[in-house]
């Protein structure tokens, strides 16, 4: 062997080593580094799941990579999720699931055009395999949704982000009868002053979703533009007397639903399920393990609730203690605190907790607790107020409900007079809604007796014929 040949052999061997390393890098890609992720910011249950999925992906196949991508995505690590999604497809045929998820991830990364390209590829993939019946779990719908229309909705929404309303509308049309897509079309029609089309489509949508208050809102807006005062008022009334939220950001809804498959989200969903199955003991065990690893307000709340259900008020009280120091406590937390304190015999502290709950926001349940525990006159006042709050709550979510007239209170305090006015206003509104003009007039008068500046009562009274 000449000297030149020796040099060439050495270079060749070095090159081959490099090629082997480069190929190895692709065959055995390293999962996007957990090192870049702040460990302290994650609950250990989530961290463990990410690490486990990462290890599996490094040694496993495309499905493992895909699962890792989904875990990253629901935890908000979109860049890592995208890398995992793409690594999982290296040298493998693209699956619908992988393409769809890449679309979702690109959508969240703000790359609307690229997201739409990926969604179109996913659609093509589904069609080519005649698997148009792909379904996706959507939390808000509490059901499975056929992927095709939903993807056209995603595409339309991205067109809106890109300020292409015409392209968006065409995409929403392709989503067919999907309610959220029809809702977007109504909005686009009102914006571009195609009012008669908007009225027709929103009426169709309301036939299928009569309790959707957002649709009533746009129907009212369309009626206002059309100059139809009666229809506008009718639908404005229904905005306040219906209770169904139409979720519009489906990408977010899907990510929120999928979060229940991984880490802390999975653990909490399981604990919630155990509570629904009336197995509080099992839920408590699970939640105790989680909170010992790392305290989180969401775990503490559920643990307190589970302990109350299991009739363990002392443990419930303990679970709430740190929440009192570090969490944001709302009226329902104070209500629960009072319940726990009463159960361990601390009646004065329980009353104080319920009064704090009322100071934050009065609700019927808290008044009811105080009514149950107080003396005659105070109990009666709380009972009247509890009834009014309960009636108002039912009035707002159920239009078939006829609200009862508020009970009487002698010499009401200003706050109590205010609640009485609210009660009479609901009664008046219901009478007006049902066309009982005289009764409505009387109820508005009583409302204004307790609150002379009640603006809506003053306005609505003028609407009466």
């Amino acid at each position, binding site marked *: 062997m000449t000297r030149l040949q020796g040099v060439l052999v050495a270079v060749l061997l070095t090159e081959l080593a490099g090629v082997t390393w480069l190929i190895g890098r*692709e065959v055995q890609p390293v999962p996007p580094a957990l090192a870049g992720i702040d460990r302290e910011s994650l609950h250990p249950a989530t961290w463990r799941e990410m690490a486990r999925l990462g290890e599996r992906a490094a040694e496993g196949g495309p499905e493992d990579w895909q699962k890792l991508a989904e875990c990253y995505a629901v935890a908000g690590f979109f860049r890592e999720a995208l890398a995992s999604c793409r690594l999982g497809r290296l040298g493998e045929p693209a699956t619908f699931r992988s393409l769809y998820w890449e679309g979702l991830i690109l959508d969240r990364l703000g790359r609307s055009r690229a997201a739409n390209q990926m969604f179109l590829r996913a659609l093509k993939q589904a069609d080519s395999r005649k698997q148009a019946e792909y379904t996706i779990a959507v939390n808000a719908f509490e059901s499975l949704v056929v992927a095709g229309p939903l993807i056209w909705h995603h595409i339309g929404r991205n067109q809106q*982000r890109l300020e292409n309303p015409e392209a*968006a509308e065409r995409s929403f049309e392709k989503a067919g009868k999907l309610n959220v897509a029809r809702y977007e079309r109504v909005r686009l029609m009102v914006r571009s002053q195609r009012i008669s089309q908007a009225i027709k489509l929103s009426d169709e949508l309301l036939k299928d979703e009569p309790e959707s208050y957002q649709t009533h809102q746009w129907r009212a807006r369309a009626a206002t533009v059309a100059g139809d005062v009666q229809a506008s008022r009718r639908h404005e009334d229904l905005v306040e007397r219906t209770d169904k939220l139409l979720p519009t*950001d489906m990408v977010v809804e899907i990510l929120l639903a999928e979060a229940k498959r991984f880490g802390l989200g999975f653990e909490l969903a399981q604990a919630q399920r155990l509570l629904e199955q009336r197995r509080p003991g099992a839920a408590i065990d699970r939640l105790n393990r989680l909170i010992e690893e790392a305290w989180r307000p969401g775990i503490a709340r559920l643990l307190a609730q589970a302990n109350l259900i299991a009739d363990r008020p002392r443990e419930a009280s303990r679970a709430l203690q740190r929440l009192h120091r570090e969490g*944001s406590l*709302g009226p329902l937390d104070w209500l629960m605190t009072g319940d726990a304190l009463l159960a361990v015999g601390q009646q004065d502290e329980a009353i104080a907790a319920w009064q704090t709950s009322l100071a934050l926001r009065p609700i019927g349940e808290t008044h009811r607790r105080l009514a149950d525990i107080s003396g005659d006159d105070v109990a009666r006042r709380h009972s009247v107020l509890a009834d009014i709050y309960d009636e108002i709550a039912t009035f707002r979510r159920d239009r078939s409900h006829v609200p009862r007239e508020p009970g009487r209170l002698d010499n009401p305090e200003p706050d109590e007079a205010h609640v009485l006015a609210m009660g009479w206003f609901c009664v008046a509104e219901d009478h007006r809604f049902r066309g009982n003009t005289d009764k409505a007039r009387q109820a508005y008068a009583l409302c204004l007796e307790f609150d002379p500046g009640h603006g809506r009562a003053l306005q609505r009274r003028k609407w009466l014929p």
Partner: protein
Amino acid sequence: MIDAPRRISNPTTALSLAVIVVALVMWWLLVRPVPSVASIDDGRPNKALLRGRADPAWQREIVLPGQWSWITNVRIIDLDDDGHNEILACDAGANRLLLARRLGEDRWDVATLAENLLTPAHVTPVDLDGDDDRDLVISLLGNIRPDDGVVGQLVWLENTGKGYRRHRILDDVRRVADAQAGDLDGDGDVDLVVAVFGYARGKVLWLENTGNEDFIEHTLLKAPGTIHVPVADFDGDGDLDITAVVTQDEEEVWGFENLGKGDGPERFRSRRLWFTHNYDLGGAGLVAGDIDHDGDLDLLLPAGDNFEYGHTYPQPYHGCLLLRNDGGWKFTVETLAVFGGTYAAAMGDMGVVLVSMFNDWTQRDAVSLVVCNRDATGPARFPWTPRPIAISPTHLATVDCGDIDGDGRDDIVAGSLHVAPPFDRSAAITVWLNRERAGQ
């Protein structure tokens, strides 16, 4: 004498060819795109993901620490009229209103002014009852998370000289995000404008002061997601008008021209001043000020709110829009700055200050606070240059400017709303004192 070329043997030729071929394969393997976290932008870096370093010319002081704080509003104001500015802050995490006084270098006293305020979103100092002292009007969300329930309130804390007496102005409403004050009907007392944010249902109200500690409610607009309602004379005719930013479902800015006559809602003529089809813009506020120094009031619209989903990411359209007042209720809209997750804006003698709630906090050098100044030499589309001031704390939701240390120059205060991880660069309330040399 010239040497004859040496003969190269066949094995040498084969080896040479092999070296070349393998080198080409190696080159191809090296240059072909391999997915990795670093390469996901496909060569198009995200301009909204602003990264940088803390500016040492701004001295940072932590007023109130807190890992999971929910500070929703900060204001610099001399509340007790002692010639020194204090900081008023809404603490939605602890349902209270705070007052912070600077005692000296990095020393602060933080006191609770009022408690049991359910998720306060905004505090407005105003003499509401005309008795020559400063009362406080507090807008209460009732829930920081998306909630379409009737959970909001508007509370008046009447200054009694010894403390504050609490009155409920509104409670049969959805989440209240803002209230602004002014004599809207010219009768000498102070009326209010209220942004009922709600969630998918909301409205803009004006509350007519009847003089008996009572207010009559008039509806100006029914639209969900109104965050701020600045009150000022936008058309220069001597009376107070209203503007409002709507940010849920629709992304739009409305103007309500005070006609100087008429009752209730008829006193105002409403106009939509601007809108976008981009539902995801994330409008996060509206600030009035003469930005272009032409004598009328313009509007700043910070955009980057994606609160409906905790895990958000800087979007290319995040930043701050400038709505330049051209007169006659016409506004020209231009981009003032691109800055991921921009959540609030304020103006001071240093320029326009922007804070970010949703930059990419997984990046340790992601910027949380910038100052924007006009750059005459910059490209025409982005005439304002955002200059990083801070990278910590993260998740800044509210900002104000004013002289905190009494040196005659404006400083900056910001509050953090730590609703999502990471929690490793946390503080509840932070100030940055201007230590820049003159001319810098």
